[in-house]
């Protein structure tokens, strides 16, 4: 792993930002001030950041209902995101999208997506555009274990394979499709073994370790960029919260969450690895922690004090022209 000090700091900052964004939302949602359905990404940060640190603003991603982490990792403005989750007029999507539809075309973030399996066909399309543009761009779709059972996802991968598109299909297997265990709903041995059947180079990897994610993705994204067609990867991961906020999670083993927080926390794993290798000092990491906490405090305060959209905004931005 040949990452420069700045790259390590950046990766940690991104992971920590996602974590604190979600931990804070978990608390704020409980107060009842945030409308709608929210699905938290805490626990999976190493995947979003390990993937997106290999991308530029000219590359595209599509995301899921659990999309905050992908948005932050791809470079969406954190304060604009918080305002959006609060449904405010100056949110990233003017309060029209909310948690499940955060997007920012300027950084190649083609949207979180409320439809499970909605994103991969769009990533295939963005990859087609990138191929035609001939500038080396790639498109990455994020999806969960649940999405691998949607027919349009199969269609998207097959189309990418026959057209040799520069796309990478990332499956974050966090063990649960909503409340149902992935071992029950996925008939094949793994998601990876199924995807291989599409003639796509596929890898299965440990998603708890940022360094493994980063290295695997570097290889796959480079392959796609160089015109070798699509790739796919299944990352083992876990979510620290429920399918949605308010999910009592009584389907999980009694000590599962405690055990994951103790042994499978990607931030702890990152910290111990960089500390043991002497790559970053505790002080560096603590400083980043403090910066991130201040940013999230600021984001929440701004979101709480931002203006709400007005009724006149209901019918704006339906069309470019009508």
């Amino acid at each position, binding site marked *: 792993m040949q990452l420069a000090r700045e790259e390590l700091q950046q990766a940690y900052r991104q992971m920590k930002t996602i974590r604190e964004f979600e931990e804070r939302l978990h608390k704020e949602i409980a107060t009842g001030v945030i409308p709608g359905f929210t699905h938290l990404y805490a626990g999976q940060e190493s995947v979003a950041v390990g993937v997106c640190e290999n991308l530029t603003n000219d590359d595209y991603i599509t995301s899921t209902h659990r999309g905050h982490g992908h948005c932050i990792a791809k470079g969406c403005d954190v304060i604009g995101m918080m305002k959006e989750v609060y449904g405010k007029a100056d949110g990233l999507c003017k309060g029209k999208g909310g948690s499940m*539809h955060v997007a920012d075309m300027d950084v190649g973030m083609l949207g979180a997506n409320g439809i499970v399996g909605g994103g991969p*066909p769009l990533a295939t399309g963005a990859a087609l*555009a990138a191929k035609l543009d001939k500038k080396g761009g790639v498109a990455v779709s994020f999806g969960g274990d649940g999405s691998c059972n949607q027919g349009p996802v199969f269609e998207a991968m097959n189309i990418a394979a026959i057209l040799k598109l520069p796309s990478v299909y990332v499956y974050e297997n966090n063990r649960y499709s909503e409340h149902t265990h992935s071992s029950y709903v996925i008939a094949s041995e793994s998601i990876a073994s199924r995807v291989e059947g599409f003639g796509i180079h596929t890898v299965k990897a440990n998603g708890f370790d940022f360094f493994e994610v980063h290295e695997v993705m570097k290889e796959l994204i480079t392959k796609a960029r160089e015109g070798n067609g699509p790739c796919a990867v299944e990352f083992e991961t876990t979510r620290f919260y429920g399918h949605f906020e308010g999910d009592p999670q009584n389907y999980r083993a009694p000590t599962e969450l405690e055990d994951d927080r103790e042994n499978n926390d990607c931030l702890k794993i990152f910290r111990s690895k960089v500390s043991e290798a002497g790559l970053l000092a505790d002080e560096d990491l603590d400083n980043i922690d403090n910066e991130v906490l201040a940013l999230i405090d600021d984001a929440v305060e701004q979101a709480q004090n931002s203006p709400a959209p007005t009724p006149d905004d209901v019918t704006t931005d339906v069309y470019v022209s009508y």
Partner: protein
Amino acid sequence: MTETTFREALTDTLHQEMARDENVIVMGEDVVGGTGNPHVEPDFVGGVFGVTAGLYTKFGVERCIDMPISEAGIVGTAAGAALAGKRPVAEIMFCDFMGLCLDQLMNQAAKFRYMFGGKATCPMVLRTTYGAGMNAASQHSQSLHPLVTMIPGLKVVIPSTPADAKGLLTTAIRDDDPVIFFEHKTLYTISGDVPDGDHTVPFGKARIVSEGEDCTLVATGRMVSFCENAAQALSEDGISCDIIDPRTTSPLDEDAILDSVEKTGRLVVVDETPPRCSFACDVAALAASEVFSSLKAPIKQVTAPHSPVPFAKELEAAYVPSPAKIKDIVEQTVNYK
């Protein structure tokens, strides 16, 4: 002006727009045809209705793309490419197959601009065929424009003449919103004068097909010529009709319809779909709400029955609104006391 078939007008427009803008790409099942088949040259098919003929030869494999039979994949790929700056013209062979790709239309393409706060555009066209008249039975004959007309974020186009086929398809390709473009299967072979060179027809601007005093007829696609036939017969009995072809059901030229109903005081809406929650209902409700005091007779709708499209010739003929039935209903409306 050149006399051209409806099909040729569409093909010429695709050629013209692909030559004009390299971001325009065409994709669908057999839009090239023959790809991968060792026994024939590519472009062997050019679309099952022949509309995409010659595009592969002219613009190459990168811009005219044969797709697997994967409607959700085709529409999703088009929507994603549109988000990323292309102007895809995707083909779904029969609109009945929209059932397979409705999520990508109604939850993805239609919603991006709104959900993303006005910062995304999805300039794609979905060309598809519709309508009965070829004994293609229940899964290849429907008229599903009402299904997409009710979805905000989509524009819906139904040309009725070769000239409009060119003008409206040109506008659709240059439009920055997702457009569903319905082509009636029986219209491909009709001929008419088509303007040469650049020809656009704006959306939301109805075509006044004919002008009269006694009754307003509103119809789209194939039903426009059925109304013309009925009006011709009615004129022999001294009844004259305004025939309004809205051209686009979304946006809808409400003014053209309402102005005409205010003038004639009578409205008959003709549509090939079943009657419930239909385009005909929509137009009838519009007139009832806005120009009620002008009406001299109840608004009538001439539509297909509330049934799937049947197969047998006799059944299909009974299903589709006929010029004779339109004439009969207009007579009843004009004679209403």
